[in-house]
């Protein structure tokens, strides 16, 4: 991007203007995500910076909204904070219960999506795969079809088969979230398989390894980064999904996004911002993990960044 010495004045002006424009666009991208972090420490129930906050006066800041996350829904929030208080919070606080539900649903749907998705990706990236294009299009379609259509369809389907009477908690939501996560697993795993050198598996077979050993010792380590980032994508998809939960989830199946949705629609309080802050931190961690995995995958396959 360096400007050559012979650039004219107009080109110089344009070059710096371009950099400023890009800077503004990056600001547009990142500012809305970062702005919630300081606001979640606001002592007042407002969604804007108070004068005290702007002057960095410590009395303008507080942890009260984080505290509310813990105490909201507790039986005795005012009791002294000993072991029984924490037990009460763990058992009754709405947000903690929502987090538990979200993690349970996310965990099982990720397991299903990653397991089925990885095996299918192995088949899809074989050159002999018949009807590859049509099948791939079908498997990716849950990502493309609007969520409201999926939710509407599932609503009719689940009420027809009466899934809530089967006695397995969260089953409907878990299956739906697994479906929504599958495209991400397929995409990330097939991406790691694109550059896969098939002579490696042949070499393993030649050296006497049976197919299972070949898979476990040769293919698996190479596609592992793709599998893990696919799993993370699937987990995030489930962890962030609200429409299907609203349509097919039981009343007791409160998840974090559903709780946020209700909070935003009914009585928006800065407590929502503290949840948002926690989720932003979670996504920073996940992004870091995925980035490290991607680099590891490139290194493993000998595609180091130049």
């Amino acid at each position, binding site marked *: 991007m360096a400007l050559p010495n012979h650039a004219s004045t107009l080109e110089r002006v344009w070059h710096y203007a371009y950099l400023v424009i890009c800077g503004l666009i990056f600001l547009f991208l990142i500012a809305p995500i970062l702005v919630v972090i300081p606001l979640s420490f606001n002592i007042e129930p407002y*969604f804007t910076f108070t004068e005290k906050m702007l002057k960095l006066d410590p009395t303008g800041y507080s942890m009260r909204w984080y505290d509310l996350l813990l105490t909201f829904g507790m039986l005795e929030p005012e009791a002294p904070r000993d072991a029984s208080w924490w037990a009460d919070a763990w058992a009754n606080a709405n947000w903690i219960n929502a987090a538990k539900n979200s993690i349970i649903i996310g965990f099982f749907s990720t397991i299903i999506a990653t397991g089925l998705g990885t095996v299918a990706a192995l*088949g899809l990236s074989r050159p002999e795969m018949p009807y590859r294009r049509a099948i791939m299009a079908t498997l990716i379609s849950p990502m493309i079809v609007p969520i409201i259509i999926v939710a509407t369809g599932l609503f009719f389907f689940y009420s027809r088969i009466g899934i809530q009477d089967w006695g397995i908690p969260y089953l409907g939501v878990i299956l739906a979230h697994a479906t929504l996560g599958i495209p*991400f697993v397929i995409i990330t795993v097939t991406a790691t398989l694109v550059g896969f050198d098939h002579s490696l598996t042949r070499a393993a077979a030649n050296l006497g390894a049976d197919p299972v050993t070949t898979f476990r010792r040769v293919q698996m380590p190479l596609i592992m980064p793709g599998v893990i980032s696919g799993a993370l994508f699937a987990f*995030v998809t489930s962890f962030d999904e609200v429409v299907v939960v609203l349509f097919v989830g039981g009343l007791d199946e409160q998840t974090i996004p559903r709780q946020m949705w209700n909070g935003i629609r009914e009585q928006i309080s800065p407590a929502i911002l503290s949840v948002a802050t926690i*989720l932003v931190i979670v996504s920073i961690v996940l992004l870091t993990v995925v980035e490290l995995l991607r680099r590891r995958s490139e290194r493993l396959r000998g595609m180091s*960044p130049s």
Partner: protein
Amino acid sequence: MTDATANGKPQMLTTADGKPLKEALNRAQARARRKAFLLVLPLLAFILITFVTPIAQMLHQSVYNEGFVMHEDIGSGERTPIMTNIKTWFDENPAGTEPNEEAFAALHKDFLLLRELRAPGQAGTRVNYERGGSRSMFTKTARRAERMEAPYMEAFLDVDEEWTDPELWRVMRDASSAYTFNFYLAALDRTKNVDGEIVNVDENRQIYVKLFARTLFLSVLITFLTFLLGYPIAHLLATLPLRYSNLLMIFVLLPFWTSLLVRTTSWMVLLQSQGVVNDALVGMGLLGDDNRLQMMYNQIGTVVAMTHILLPFMVLPLYSVMRPINPSYVRAARSLGATSWTAFRRIYFPQTVPGIGAGALLVFILAVGYYITPALVGGADGQLISNLIAFHMQNSLNWSLAAALAALLLAGILILYWLYDRLIGIDNLKLG
């Protein structure tokens, strides 16, 4: 084998155990195909059950509504056909026949059954979808059905004088068969008149076509804005050395990984009339305190928030197309005397068109079906078609109409998806 040699043809190649090579090869290939397919099969079955079947059922719901023909007891699940007598009358008399005493007698019998099953509300609701005010007529009539005596026509007219309304009889005739395309007509602001011809509904009740048009317009606008914002930064990322561009990429990927609800909430915080942007503008003296900008709960809110949320889907495909472009082409153009603008327009830009196509199609497909963000920041005039589907599912409970709207939306999306697969190929879809 010997015959082949005897005829002077070249000897056929065989495997070690004497099978013709071609056949053995075919068999091996078929086995490999089967193996590959078996790996995919479990997932395919899973998707068929949890995704394709539900959508197929939704499509069925859009042409099938048994509210007027079948009653299902919520407790026992027992199914009883209803409105059978009037159905017989409809079958015997062609459309447009004036309802006579015989028709009302049949209707009376049906109402006695409705009363017994406590189902007049259900049957009335089905008629109410196409003719407002019918539900209350049905419940009112059913309450008095047991006390009615012949002549039934007068008895019905005593309850409500609209019982001879030809519109009502047209709707009942349509509703008496469970399969109908009327919900698609309703989804396109059309209805049938008394003679069964398809006509537009009243001017002030035409909402769906307008909403489809608005959804398309806003999606195009959002796609264009993401292109406008995405192109410069994708270009910057693609031309910087990888060390810096990987760092700057975080600005694109972090929003991509952040919860949708979090991003929508942030925009609510920023755009509210007492929010950060308005406060900043007032603080800088650019805006009076009493005329704060109304940027949320209208189309501006929807457009701004959705542009932000969908921007990464434009930047990532653009970036992956721009990165491998060889900078020496532009340099060659410059050395041949092109101005930097000409070199960009004639040399660089055409090479990025595939990326623009991929990004724009993806953003457009995602935007058309958006639900959450318009529902939260859109207010009344920033709603998209998805929001109306949700409204009919959850509030008005007109599920068949919701399904018909969803089917129309789905058809549009699938065409675009097919186009995407043709032009770009799903294999080229990348995430981060």
